[in-house]
């Protein structure tokens, strides 16, 4: 009978809006999480089924889970051997990145030497050179000129130094008060001693950040080790699994199961590390550290 006054209408609208936003936000987030996590669920479930079922009812397996797929993929590609290869490459990349990165980051942040400006300009330049331009000439050099095909050194070479890590270390060292270093120097400490016993303990969070961002890159990398390795015994898991997918899977009776089992083995270490240290993964830290 009585038409609602503008004030009441507004209050009504506000209430409706508040009611809507109360469920809109969780709904959007849940939908997103489902879209991101469902493929992982399918990966694990599919790897445990004798015959991965692509029908809707197959999404909830009705018993009969088996580890046969894991034995199958282990029979086609030596899982332990390829995991070891992945580990050696990743470990080498981490050690190289830490050593070179700490030394260069410290020198660029704290020390005053001739050529520092030039070096810093080069660091900036490297950030803008895309890796794909380097693929062919690096392949020519590494494989044809230096004869490093099928070797750990050849596979780890482009990952031995991570320029992002140099930046991270430089930023952390810049934040330390310079008086700390001069005090240690007055006490007669050599520069390496200052770096090792004064500076390094204070940037421990940077070490963790760099280890995390270096781990994911080489562990997940496919193109470079794929180019450098022909021998199956030298391939990291990502390459062995990709070759299996491309060449063998089509000829086996249950290709999905074995491929998914291999995917779980390849994904687990990186995902596990991420879940444990997820607080340390921030957008700024990882922006340039991850590929693939």
């Amino acid at each position, binding site marked *: 009978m009585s038409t609602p006054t503008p004030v009441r209408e507004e209050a009504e609208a506000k209430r409706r*809006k508040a009611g809507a936003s109360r469920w809109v*936000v969780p709904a959007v987030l849940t939908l*997103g*999480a489902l879209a*991101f996590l469902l*493929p*992982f669920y399918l*990966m694990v479930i599919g790897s445990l089924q004798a015959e*991965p079922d*692509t*029908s*809707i009812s197959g999404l909830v397996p009705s018993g009969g889970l088996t580890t046969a797929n894991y034995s199958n993929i282990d029979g086609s590609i030596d899982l332990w051997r390829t995991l070891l290869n992945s580990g050696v490459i990743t470990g080498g990349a981490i050690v190289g990145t830490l050593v*070179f990165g700490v*030394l260069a980051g410290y*020198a*660029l942040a*704290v020390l*005053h*030497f*001739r*050529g520092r400006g030039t*070096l*810093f300009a080069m660091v900036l330049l*490297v950030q803008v050179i*895309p890796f*794909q*331009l380097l*693929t*062919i*000439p690096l392949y*020519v*050099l590494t494989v*044809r000129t230096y004869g490093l095909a099928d070797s750990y050194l050849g596979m780890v070479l482009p990952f031995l*130094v991570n320029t*992002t890590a*140099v*930046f991270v270390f*430089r*930023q952390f060292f810049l934040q330390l008060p*310079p008086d700390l270093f001069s005090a240690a120097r*007055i006490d007669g400490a050599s*520069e390496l001693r200052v770096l090792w016993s004064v500076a390094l303990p204070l940037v421990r969070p940077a070490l963790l950040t760099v280890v995390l961002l270096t781990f994911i890159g080489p562990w*997940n990398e*496919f193109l470079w080790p794929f*180019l450098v390795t022909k021998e199956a015994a030298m391939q990291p898991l*990502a390459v062995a699994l990709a070759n299996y*997918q491309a060449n063998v899977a089509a000829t086996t009776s249950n290709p*999905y199961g074995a*491929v*998914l089992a*291999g*995917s779980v083995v*390849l*994904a687990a270490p*990186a995902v596990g590390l*991420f879940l444990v240290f*997820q607080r340390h993964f921030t*957008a*700024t830290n990882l922006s340039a550290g991850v590929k*693939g």
Partner: protein
Amino acid sequence: MSALTPARPGPASSSSPAGRSRTTTSASDGRPPRGGLTPLQRAFGRHPIGVLLALPYAVFLVAVFAYPVVLAAWMSVHDWFFSAPGVEVSHPFVGFENYRQVLTDPQVHQAFLNIGVFLVINVPLTVALALVLAVALNRAARGRTFFRVAFYVPYVTASVALVGVWLFLLGGDGVVNSLLGPLAPDPSWLVNSSLAMPSIAGFVAWKQLGFFVLLYLAALQNVSRDLYEAASMDGAGRVRQFFTVTVPGVRTTTALVVILAVITGANLFTEPYLLTGGGGPDGASTSPVLLMYQLGIEQGNPDTASALGIVLVVVVGLLVLLNRRLLRSES
């Protein structure tokens, strides 16, 4: 990225407290005169050991970045082919012949066209979904950590591992097609010449989205609360606020997202190689890097492959410049 912002090259820090205190202390601790500089310091700067500490990294940069870039440019204007190890062969100068071959190759045109399709689908999808998820995450009352982790998991997972699941999802007898039933496309997603590249663009958007959500989330923290309040006073609803406050507020991040998506597109290799069996059907999902691999390594023409690499880098550089120009003229 933001790690770069406070960084300033050499000269700025030459007057840093570290440098000054060094001079003053060395004057008082019985070192030779002339400002307390030893001959070594005169030659290499106040901290000569800095040269030593930075040397391994500098050598690495030259060996793994600078030299290969020069080699790529050199190879691209010479007739370069693989020879048996230790055999000296001449690589005659051919001028722009390799570039002519690359630029007239229909396969190359197709590959760049494919990347265009990739970007047209990938960029809007990434920007829209990442922004919506970031805004929702920013407003979330509970479960923030859970959602953040869930969105980010694909980003830290190897493409090779995820490709396995996507073949399971998008294969001819895959989960998606059995859900769609008679609506399933024929031929199926990854073997269909008009759907192969969009499928890849969708996969990459999904895989990378978590990273962009975090980028947007960081940008949203910097959008002033006052602007929302002002907009709300003016009677703007949530949706209106999103378009008049949020979207312009995160414009620089959007520009960064576009640049990173272009770089991702230019680097595309693993997904077309594995999802579509080497860039099929009929090259409908070939990428320039995949073509570089086929030309340079499978067919043994690293000279044309290098020329293609340089063309690719020039194209990416132009796109990035264009993006910056647009951003600057807008602001």
